[in-house]
């Protein structure tokens, strides 16, 4: 067994593990369900999530430390993650291999040639880091010695990455740009950040998730492939998963795979920001592929199998190298070896990134600028969109957008499928972040469920207990976690607008005491008054009367002589042409009606209804009412993000639970 066999075994193992971990991400206690499987492990291994959230929040949430394990190993070994672990890389690898099968020797060499457009991934990486790092400059990151030290550490780490990039300027001409110029450009970016931080819109926005290979594969499997083919779905009706904007997710996934037929590992070479990050670390790796020039006959066989396009027949670009080991295997002269860098680092000159420092700084600066400009639209604060309802435990929108990596784990674990990937409703930044769509799921947000908050790998949805969600126990003084508030649309509600009994919403309200209360009313039906001419036992003879079709059921109908006096109101038991039978025993036991022979003068048909009212002090915005409302198109009761706890300024209540602001 040679090294590429081992590598293929590793790739297969991790791909299967990845699919397995996606498959078991559903609620339940079987071994094929979530139990304690480390379903976020791949997301956490990817250092992109760690660096991105650290820049924006100054913290590394729990499992994100796995990213440091990857980075450390990359520093020693090179980009093993891309070639040996990354499941998306494996798919790229296989498809690239398929695409190359029938190609000639020279075509393969050409397809695997290094191209200057490989730098695109760095530009993307630095732009998203620029977008994420806005908060580094804000004053509250420098208020204490420890937080200042951490911020300084992040700055230093970022500077090390930036300065470690492309110091050689133009690699071909070997011309070195002046260090002074570099320094000035860097200082300009720093000052630029400092200036931006003065403004309220200077906030970080994490966009690594757009092209993060793990998040991309995760959401493509969980939200498109699995549901489309009915694989590994949750039990029961929730197994029919719907995904808003599945077409876009699917198209991106197909394109990312299909481009392998153009160039092998297209995504990894040109687009992958995680690969770019690991390139920056891996190019300094202790061990690396090295060509022994004395032995090399320049036969180019290695170039035909190098899908990372790292130029094994020349000076190897060790940052691009994914350690696939193909060159080791095919070289007839054993001219390539994997060893500790044989020369002092400087002389070894790890293949430069085809990007000058200044371009890097410009990309960073552009990202830094882009974040507040996008934020200017105000969607995350003042002009909040009325249809963006975030899962329970979500941080306030600006902080949420600093953490969410669009991996879709919350959507996958949601037992009801009420969580959907946002398309544009949460703004440009909010693409593929979770929002609740009460018409999509099998129910609204389940009252006893906190699954999404427990699974979120970056704590964009912070961890909740059921007690905290309900505002009970130790959280009694804070009140419940509210996603929004329900509003009755009286123009669409059956009892309010159509005179028919319903109150499905009230019955389904999970809060106790219920957040939806009802108001009992007795309303005249739009009909001419009736006259009772005679009485036969319980039956009153009403000349010319015809039973009314398509009205409320009989038990809701009353005959009323005086709307102000319950003694002159009789529940209808039955009716027919020319007669109406009423009950003489008032359900409330007043019983005066029995003494009345028959009502004189005009009587009216009326309907007794319970009409829903929402108590916003109790409503948690779970949307179960909206989901259950029989008016389906535009439901007659709808939840909007007013009153959500994560944004006290959207409150509807004068009296706040203590400690809200």
């Amino acid at each position: 067994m040679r090294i590429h066999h081992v590598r293929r075994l590793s790739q297969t193992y991790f791909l299967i593990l990845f699919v397995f971990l996606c498959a078991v991400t559903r609620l339940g206690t079987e071994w094929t369900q979530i139990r304690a499987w480390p379903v976020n492990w791949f997301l956490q291994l990817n250092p992109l999530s760690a660096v991105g959230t650290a820049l924006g929040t100054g913290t590394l949430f729990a499992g994100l430390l796995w990213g440091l394990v990857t980075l450390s190993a990359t520093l020693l070994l090179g980009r093993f993650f891309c070639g040996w672990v990354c499941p998306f890389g494996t798919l790229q690898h296989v498809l690239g291999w398929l695409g190359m099968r029938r190609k000639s020797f020279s075509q393969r060499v050409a397809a695997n040639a290094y191209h200057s457009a490989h730098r695109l991934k760095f530009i993307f990486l630095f732009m998203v880091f620029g977008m994420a790092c806005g908060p580094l400059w804000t004053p509250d990151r420098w208020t204490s010695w420890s937080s200042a030290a951490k911020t300084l550490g992040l700055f230093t780490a970022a500077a090390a990455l930036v300065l470690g990039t492309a110091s050689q300027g133009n690699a071909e001409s070997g011309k070195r740009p002046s260090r002074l110029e570099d320094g000035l450009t860097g200082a300009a970016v720093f000052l630029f950040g400092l200036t931006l931080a003065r403004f309220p819109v200077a906030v970080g926005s994490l966009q690594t998730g757009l092209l993060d290979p793990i998040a991309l594969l995760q959401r493509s499997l969980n939200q498109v492939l699995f549901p489309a083919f009915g694989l590994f779905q949750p039990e029961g009706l929730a197994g029919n998963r719907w995904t808003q904007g599945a077409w876009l997710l699917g198209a991106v996934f197909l394109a990312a795979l299909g481009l392998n037929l153009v160039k092998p590992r297209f995504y990894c070479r040109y687009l992958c920001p995680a690969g770019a990050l690991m390139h920056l670390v891996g190019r300094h790796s202790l061990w690396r592929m090295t060509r022994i020039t004395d032995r090399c006959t320049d036969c180019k066989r290695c170039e035909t199998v190098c899908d990372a396009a790292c130029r094994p027949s020349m000076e190897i670009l060790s940052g691009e190298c994914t350690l696939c080991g193909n060159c080791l295997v095919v070289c007839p002269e054993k001219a390539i070896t994997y060893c500790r860098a044989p020369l002092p680092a400087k002389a070894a000159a790890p293949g430069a990134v085809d990007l000058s420092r200044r371009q890097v700084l410009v990309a960073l600066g552009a990202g830094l600028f882009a974040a507040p400009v996008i934020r200017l639209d105000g969607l995350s604060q003042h002009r909040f969109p009325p249809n963006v309802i975030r899962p329970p435990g979500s941080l306030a929108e600006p902080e949420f957008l600093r953490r969410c990596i669009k991996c879709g784990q919350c959507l996958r674990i949601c037992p009801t499928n009420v969580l959907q990937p946002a398309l544009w409703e949460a703004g440009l930044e909010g693409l593929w972040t979770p929002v609740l769509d009460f018409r999509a799921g099998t129910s609204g947000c389940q009252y006893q469920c906190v699954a999404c908050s427990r699974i979120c790998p970056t704590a964009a949805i912070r961890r909740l207990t059921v007690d905290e969600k309900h505002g009970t126990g130790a959280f009694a003084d804070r009140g419940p976690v509210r996603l929004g508030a329900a509003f009755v649309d009286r123009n669409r509600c059956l009892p309010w607008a159509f005179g028919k009994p319903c109150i499905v919403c009230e019955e389904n309200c999970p809060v106790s005491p219920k957040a939806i209360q009802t108001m009992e009313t007795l309303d005249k039906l739009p009909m001419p008054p009736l006259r009772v001419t005679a009485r036969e036992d319980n039956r009153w003879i009403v000349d010319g009367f015809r039973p009314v079709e398509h009205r409320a059921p009989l038990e809701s109908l009353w005959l009323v002589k005086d709307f102000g006096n319950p003694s002159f109101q009789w529940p209808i038991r039955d009716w027919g042409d020319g007669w109406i039978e009423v009950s003489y025993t008032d359900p409330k036991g007043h019983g005066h009606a029995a003494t009345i022979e028959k009502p004189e003068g005009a009587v009216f048909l009326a309907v007794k209804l319970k009409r829903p009212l929402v108590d916003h002090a109790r409503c948690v915005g779970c949307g179960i009412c909206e989901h259950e409302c029989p008016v389906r198109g535009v439901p007659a009761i709808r939840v909007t993000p007013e009153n959500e706890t994560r944004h006290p300024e959207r409150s509807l209540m004068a009296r706040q639970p203590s400690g809200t602001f």
Partner: protein
Amino acid sequence: MEETKGPLPSLDSPVRRRFLGSALRYGLGLTALWTLGLSLSDWIGPTGAHDRSKSLSGPFDWSVPNAPKAVAVVTGSHRAACFAEAMKALGGMPRFIASGDRVFVKVNAAFASPPSLGATSHPELVEAVVRHCVDAGAAQVVVSDNPINDPASCFRLTGIADAVRRAGAKVWFPESRHFQPVTLPDGQYLHQWPSWTAPFLLADKVINLAPVKHHHRAGASMICKNWYGLLGGPRNLFHQHVHEVIGELAALFRPTLAVLDGITTMMTNGPTGGSLADLKETQTLIVSPDPVAADALGASLLNIDPHKLPYLQHAQRLGAGTLNLEAVAIHRATL
């Protein structure tokens, strides 16, 4: 791989030195990486708990000790003269403003409308009050409000900005990053409520200067209601319980002086007005260290029984002042 073959390198051989060098470099790199990573690590994540330590706790009391239990009620039409007369009756401005004091004058600049419409504090009166403060030796006089309409437009159109400049004081516009939460202990509504604290935190003395206006929701808008203008956040929620909230505001903010302008009273269509037909020349200026007593007298200009204004009851119960006009000396004067 190449180097491991052959004889063992000696201690100072280039190979050994290089090994030590790279071990050191990579060791340092990894140590730095993990030091930073572990120092940033957060095993709990955000908890959703709010930092209560940032909240400022009231009540904020700027009243002077031994202030006279008195109200000056001056009848006239010239605001500056009426104010001078009122201060004379109360013992003169130096009794309230000491030399070197920093004074905050909380005007009512709620609307971007001209002074003739009577919806805001009158610039002539603002100017007179500021001048009295300056003459009493105030080191700094700041005039501010967090109005309903656009702040810059409000101060410009009401003429207050010009008046303040003429009198040698400063107008402060509210700035969102200078709002801080304030709390009235034992209050039900004013809990960590974001407020425009910058002007009053720096002040030694605070003067509340408001016009008498009809108010559809609260009945009347005078001194106590004027504190609304220090609130930020979604303060419009408070209209659900407006009387209780105004009562709490009166308990939270205790002014040095209340200057209630009833020279012209907005009788209807308040608190915005908008027409001269809404106004009535009531020719009365009310000045008192007791804001509740001042409001009680102001209410009568609107033909309202002060005992039927619930917020005055709340304010009195919370100790903000007295509704019992028998207990205060009323100095009446006519110009």
